[in-house]
């Protein structure tokens, strides 16, 4: 009489296996059938929980709870999911009969199907509730043991996902490393500065080390960046104690030699001197 739908009389099935007869097996079956009756009508009928409550004479929260159970049992479908408390409370979620729900409702109405409540399976909620009572009254160890037997999901093991904890940061060692790095850089700069200072008098004929040549090109670049059109250029560098002057000299080519290559300045002469020598 119910057609070929794969319905089962279980109170614990998932939506993937609809349990369209379950509402006949619960103690307050009449209220569920009333809810289904409120939804029966035009195929497109969609009501909010409040509208169903109004039609059945119940309260909205109770109607919503029954509707949601009917959704789980496959009798009712829900249109929209609320994404905020405001929308949820406004009852924008609407419910309607599924094809399965409609067929069962019609068949039940036509044949006065009665199912004894005594045949209903013991729902998990019953033994879980009874167990909760025992757990609440138990000591710590017994409560944990009962939980393990009933649910048994362990606590997560964070180290398994995150790997071994990172070593603690040794601030003193880190500071030493920074100072060492800075010290090394400082020593290299002092060495380059000394070499450049020593080579200043004969710059165009000296082959500079990589560090000194890098310092020279750095000073040249900064001087050129500040040069006025057709004018001389000058830069002073306090950290190295050096100054560099670029003097306009049309027709003059000044080669500068370093381990990394040669730079030739067209139309300039270069003068490098200690900053203190200028004063």
């Amino acid at each position, binding site marked *: 009489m119910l057609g070929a739908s794969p319905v089962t009389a279980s109170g614990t099935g998932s939506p993937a296996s609809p349990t369209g007869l379950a509402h006949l097996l619960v103690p307050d079956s009449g209220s569920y059938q009333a809810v289904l009756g409120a939804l029966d009508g035009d195929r497109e009928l969609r009501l909010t929980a409040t509208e169903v409550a109004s039609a059945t004479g119940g309260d909205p929260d109770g109607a919503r709870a029954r509707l949601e159970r009917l959704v789980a049992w496959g009798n009712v479908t829900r249109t929209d999911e609320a994404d905020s408390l405001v929308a949820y409370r406004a009852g924008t979620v609407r419910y309607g009969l599924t094809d399965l729900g409609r067929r069962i409702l019609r068949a039940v109405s036509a044949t006065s199907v009665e199912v004894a409540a005594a045949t209903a399976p013991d729902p998990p909620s019953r033994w879980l509730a009874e167990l909760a009572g025992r757990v609440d009254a138990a000591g710590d160890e017994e*409560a944990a043991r009962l939980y393990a037997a*009933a649910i048994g999901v362990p606590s997560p093991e964070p180290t398994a996902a995150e790997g071994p904890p990172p070593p603690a940061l040794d601030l003193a060692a880190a500071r030493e490393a920074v100072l060492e790095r800075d010290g090394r850089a400082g020593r290299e700069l002092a060495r380059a500065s000394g070499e450049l200072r020593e080579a200043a008098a004969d710059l165009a004929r000296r082959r500079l080390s990589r560090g000194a040549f890098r310092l020279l090109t750095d000073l040249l670049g900064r001087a050129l960046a500040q040069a006025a059109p057709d004018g001389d250029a000058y830069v002073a560098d306090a950290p190295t104690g050096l100054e560099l002057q670029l003097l306009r000299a049309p027709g003059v080519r000044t080669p500068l030699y370093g381990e990394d290559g040669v730079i030739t300045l067209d139309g300039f002469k270069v003068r490098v001197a200690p900053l203190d020598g200028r004063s």
Partner: protein
Amino acid sequence: MDPMATLLSRPVLPAADAGLPAVRRRETELAARLGDEYGRGLLVDAAGARVIDPRASLLRADGSPFTPRMYACLLLAVAVLPSVGARVTAAELDARVTALAGEAGIDPGAEGPLAWRRAVAEALLTLRAWGVVGEIDGGLSGYAEDGEDALLAVDAALARLLPLEGGAS
């Protein structure tokens, strides 16, 4: 992430979890390793996957152990979740848990309403960590402390995967 590490760090995996396909593919091997190395079991079905540990116990977010009342609230929440629908507010869920607690002979007011609400919230926070409930609007921490309501999403199918057949002895 290695699926074994996934299961150890997240012992409940919802159907939509990115780590679940790898667990499904290697279910037999993972179940054997969990049994041999950890004395645990593995259950995989359409709703997701979950680890079973006969010696399991739970810790709160601050690392302290669950109290008996928190375990009781967790059992009650697992009992009511399959029937509340895909959306429910924390206050409604609390009311359902509290009503069932009354049927089970538990006095929710024994330690005061705030302590009861915190115990319920602690149970729901654990279920949130497992992916059984999710926070849509508002949060469970706010509900625990201030009673500020929150809209929750419920994975009823995953909730049905939690109770072990036969229950506790």
